């Protein structure tokens, strides 16, 4: 199946062709795939080399000059390594940009910890004004990239090699109710939808599908919770466990509630292997999810 990263390259090339505001900023990662786009748009496909501070600094400068830059590399090198550039060269300058990462929490299991960034969303969540998108399918990634390209704010688009079985008819900014039940609400983020639906088969639970995780769709969560017999909420996030617990607590401030945050564990595994093995190690495979969700709901 086509990956989100492949769809990103194709879509970005189309955006370069159709919108003179668009620029692509790279730090060697995916540069080979962008070579045809660079040949057609040498001034708007910029590869700075293996220089991630410059990647983000140039991105801020391009916006200051009036363009709509899309910067891309692995999440460790896009959000974590140049975090102060993200904070100052974009946020403090009060400019927008689209940051597109590919690699997620453990796409690159055989590469080890240096190429894994389960903390990227939590880290970015310390900053104001970011829209954070976690698509679960290449079709959703394309929709979100086109949406982000047409806007002016700061958008983080987190692509992954992990994907759901099928795209959802999601709308940017909104959680999508996928199924309804009476015993609680599960919020499945991005590529976690397929394992979550497998995990809750036969259980009387509501499932919300979340792609835009910041801002958090408080209204959709409250509607699901008030339609349920309990205010029990389970978050299943494909990045650091608990990243959105605070959002649920704030959304349900006036309701006695319980929240279980599932996601990638904080402890370093120090294992290689496959993404499926890492999902299981973090308790994010369908069997583990079913056991943990059922146990929490009693």
């Amino acid at each position, binding site marked *: 199946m086509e990956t989100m990263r492949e769809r990103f390259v194709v879509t970005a090339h189309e955006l370069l062709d159709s919108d*003179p505001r668009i*620029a692509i900023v790279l730090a060697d990662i995916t540069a080979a795939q962008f070579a045809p786009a660079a040949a057609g748009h040498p*001034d*708007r496909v*910029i590869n*700075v*080399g293996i*220089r991630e*501070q*410059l990647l*983000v*600094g*140039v*991105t*801020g*400068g*391009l*916006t*200051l*000059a*009036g*363009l709509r*830059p899309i910067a891309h590399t692995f999440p460790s090198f896009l959000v974590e390594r140049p975090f*102060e*550039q993200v904070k*100052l*060269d974009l946020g*403090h*300058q*009060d400019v927008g940009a689209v940051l597109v990462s590919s690699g997620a929490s453990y796409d690159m299991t055989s590469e080890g910890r240096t190429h894994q960034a389960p903390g990227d969303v939590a880290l970015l969540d310390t900053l104001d004004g970011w829209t954070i998108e976690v698509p679960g399918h290449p079709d959703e990634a394309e929709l979100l990239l086109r949406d982000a390209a047409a806007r002016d704010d700061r958008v983080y688009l987190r692509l992954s090699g992990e994907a759901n079985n099928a795209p959802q008819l999601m709308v940017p900014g909104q959680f999508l109710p996928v199924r309804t039940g009476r015993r609680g609400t599960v919020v499945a983020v991005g590529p976690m939808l397929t394992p979550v639906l497998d995990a809750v088969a036969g259980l009387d639970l509501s499932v919300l599908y979340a792609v835009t995780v910041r801002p958090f769709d408080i209204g959709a969560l409250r509607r699901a919770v008030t339609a349920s017999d309990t205010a029990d909420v389970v978050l299943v996030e494909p990045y650091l466990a608990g990243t959105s617990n605070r959002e649920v607590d704030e959304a349900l401030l006036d309701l006695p509630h319980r929240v279980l945050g599932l996601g990638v564990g904080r402890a370093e595994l120090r294992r290689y292997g496959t993404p499926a093995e890492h999902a299981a190690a973090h308790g994010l495979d369908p069997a583990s999810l079913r056991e943990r969700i059922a146990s929490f709901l009693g």
Partner: protein
Amino acid sequence: MMAMTTSQLGRYGYADIEGLMGLMTGDEKHGPAATSTLDALWVLYDRVLNVDPRDPGAPARDRFLLSKGHGPVAYYAVLAAKGFIDPGVLRGFASFDSALGYHPDRTLIPGVEIGSGSLGHGLGLAVGIALGLRAQARPEPQVFVMLGDAELDEGSNHEAIAFAGAIGLDSLHAVVIDNSSATHGWSGGVGTRFEREGWSTVTVNGRDHDALEAAFVAPREGRPRAVVAVVEPKNSAARRPAINVR
């Protein structure tokens, strides 16, 4: 709100800067750095930059980025003298209601292109601005970014210096105020860091207005330009540059 009326433009000359600086107080920590930048700033705003306080966001304007956000008193004084800031607001410097802090904020001051303070951010932003102007087929605007010799300690600068040199980004001008404040110095001089990456580089007396102007307006050679403006060492009372310049 802050910009002056047209009739006020041109009221101030270089001799008035000291008085404007005197309106600001409480920046003792950044004192020596504040004046190291003064002459280069004055020459840029008085003789070189195509900027207009009546239209500080004009697309075709030259850009000036104070990367070295420390010691902005001279910067604010020059902006006031040139009509970007009402001199009256200098008195509230760094107070809660003031737009003028120890480090400038682009969202608060007309004509200030970037917020700075954390060292090593301006050159990367300047590279992006220059590339963005080029991508929009605007060859005229020049992008000047002012750094300090100690600021070059930050590795981010060297990412930008190597890249800009490699691609021949000739609308980019680095102005390095060298007051010998880098803790470990720069063997061979600051200019060598730019020169070896393909920049057109010149080192001048940072107090000599004519020499500064000549360095800033020298013809473009298809390469980025670095002007190293040498001033008194930060920790010396000497009024003459300690380094011989060519």
